[in-house]
């Protein structure tokens, strides 16, 4: 089978600093290395996707994720390497590209649709579907400048997914729009994938990546540092960030520090161990047995009332249990630099047979970023529940009693 997308040592270099100064530069792309400074936005990236596969690309800002999408969608051209995209593609790098505020929703559907490469007749044929999906039919003849940003995004997404692409490239665009619409978008992406559309999804939203993609790739400083399943990639990404946090302390971003997995290591999670009632390390538990997640935290700086979060999930990333000290209304004390504490989190495990993983993170009380975060800090398996499938032991009990009205069946049937 031919690949849907094949990328072979793909690299893209941007010139930084001053633009072209000399007319000769225009045609001499190769030689002018004297005073130009370059930045490798994408460096020697390789991957291959078969039709119907979906790849999540994760990584911090500036890692080259969007550049890969731009290369694949032919907006920009590679400096070196090869790439091939087979089949019609649609790229959601920006929703509603080319929308004109003075034009109505209807006019903009045709405009944006043709920008995305559809013929007028194709748009006409899908017009009702697009309107239906976007849910803006009552504002169809209103200029889009009067739309809310949510409506704008909904219309943009609706048009893009109705290109019926064989390859769909999605950049972090679902952050806009309300929750029900996001669900609708994920559902639509799932549906397209089942119908054989190849998907590349770039996001900071780890849950979304786990949910939509089967493969995952971690980008870091232009390089593809990890390939694996989406769930594995999220773990690898978290580890990479953690490694980096040990080395560099840069400024904390104003916002979005959590979504970018920004870590400062003011508090470091030294160790996470799973203990049974007797305080002995365990990896296998009987369903329902008490479990103590013991977390050793070393404080490198004075930290005031941090929050601690614990997530238990299945290996494919489904959340079984997610909690945080603030949600528990548990106020952590202040800690001082140099102190080390053990935090015991005791819980019950009414779970069904299977493997479970524990993520732990510690964050400042304004939730601006992470102090530290470990995905798959520990894992345990549950045994002894052969009577049910799923995740949670709801402890079903059966009881059989004679019915009160004995003759019911017999009399009504005749």
């Amino acid at each position: 089978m031919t690949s849907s997308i094949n990328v072979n040592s793909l690299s893209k270099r941007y010139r930084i600093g001053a633009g072209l100064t000399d007319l000769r530069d225009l045609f001499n792309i190769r030689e002018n290395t004297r005073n130009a400074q370059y930045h490798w936005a994408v460096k020697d990236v390789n991957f291959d996707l078969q039709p119907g596969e979906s790849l999540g690309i994760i990584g911090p800002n500036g890692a080259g994720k969007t550049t890969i999408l731009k290369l694949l969608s032919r907006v920009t051209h590679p400096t070196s390497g090869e790439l091939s995209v087979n089949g019609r593609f649609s790229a959601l790098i920006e929703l509603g590209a080319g929308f004109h505020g003075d034009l109505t929703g209807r006019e903009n559907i045709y405009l944006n649709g043709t920008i995305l490469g559809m013929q007028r007749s194709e748009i006409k044929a899908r017009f009702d579907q697009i309107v239906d999906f976007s849910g803006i039919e009552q504002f169809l003849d209103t200029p889009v400048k009067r739309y809310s940003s949510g409506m704008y995004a909904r219309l943009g997404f609706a048009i893009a997914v109705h290109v019926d692409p064989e390859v769909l490239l999605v950049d972090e665009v679902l952050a806009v729009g309300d929750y029900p619409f996001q669900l609708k978008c994920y559902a639509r992406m799932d549906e397209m994938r089942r119908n054989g559309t190849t998907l590349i999804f770039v996001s900071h939203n780890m849950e979304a990546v786990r949910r939509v993609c089967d493969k995952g790739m971690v980008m870091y400083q232009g390089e593809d540092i990890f390939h694996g399943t989406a769930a594995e990639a999220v773990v690898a990404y978290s580890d990479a960030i953690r490694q980096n946090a040990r080395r560099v302390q840069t400024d904390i971003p104003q916002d979005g520090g959590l979504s970018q997995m920004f870590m400062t290591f003011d508090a470091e999670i030294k160790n996470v161990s799973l203990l049974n009632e007797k305080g002995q390390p365990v990896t296998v538990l009987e369903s329902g047995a008490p479990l103590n997640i013991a977390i050793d935290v070393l404080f490198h700086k004075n930290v005031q009332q941090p929050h601690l979060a614990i997530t238990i999930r299945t290996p494919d990333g489904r959340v079984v249990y997610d909690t945080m000290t603030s949600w528990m209304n548990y106020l952590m004390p202040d800690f001082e630099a140099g102190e080390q504490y053990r935090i015991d989190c005791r819980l019950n495990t009414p779970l069904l047979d299977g493997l479970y993983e524990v993520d732990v993170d510690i964050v400042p009380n304004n939730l601006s970023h992470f102090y530290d975060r470990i995905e798959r800090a520990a894992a345990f398996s549950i045994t002894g529940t052969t009577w049910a499938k799923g995740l949670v032991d709801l402890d079903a009990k059966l009881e059989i009693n004679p019915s009160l009205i004995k003759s019911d069946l017999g009399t009504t049937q005749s």
Partner: protein
Amino acid sequence: MSKNEPSVGNLSLESSMTTTTNSVSFGFFSDLKELYKYRDLVWAWGMRTIRARYKQSILGGLWAILQPVIAAIIFSVIFTFFVPVDTGDTPYIVFSYTAMVPWILFTSSTADMVDSLVANMGLVSKIYFPREVLPISALMARLLDFAIAMALLLILILVFQVPIFPLGLLFLPVILLVQIAFSLGLGLFGSALNVFYRDIRSLVGLILQIWLYVTPIIYPVTMVPERLQPFYFLNPMAGIIEAYRSVLLYQQLPGPYFALSSIVAIVTLFFGYWFFKRLEFQFADVV
């Protein structure tokens, strides 16, 4: 194509282009084929430009007429009363308006085309489509203005009882096509260059201003010394404007200079398109 092992030494590939895929290809005919695939976008983007221009405007399409009319009136006053210019049997206003309509199409479309890529950089840096769509649409959007102004010209011709020359009118589309080819060539060239050097836009404005005086718009060709005329007609707009006048006012077919204009126009178009395509792959990177 065999898959290479990812190698550290990929720098050696540095100057190679994207190797072939079924979606990235180069060449004149494949470029045209790709453009044809996006023909609906050319239309939609042109319509967007027109609608955007006239939405929330009181006079709307009247602006298409006002500009050439006012220019023609001003020149009529100057060259009828202050510095009389001999335009033969044709009243000066008809004489100058006939030239002003295609001239304004030329200047406004060229200016719009040169600006078209930079003005839509947000789109160019985010979404793929053949970039020549933008200048072509910019030109198309100005054709509506031209049609409106042309309608008034026909009325003027009837009012001033200029004899109609049916065979000449058949030539009008040919003259228009030559003009379009010429300005499109310039527009493609200028718009591509303007991405890299924003001076181009101002420079083009200046050149167009000067160009008015080396083209027979406000004065007849007969005022140009005979021996200078071969050089004068190296300016293709001179031949084109004279061709419009020939068929609309003088009941003559376009003269031999129009043939020269046509050749220059076609060469300009090919050169402009080649130049544009040559630089196109860098547009998105040079925002």
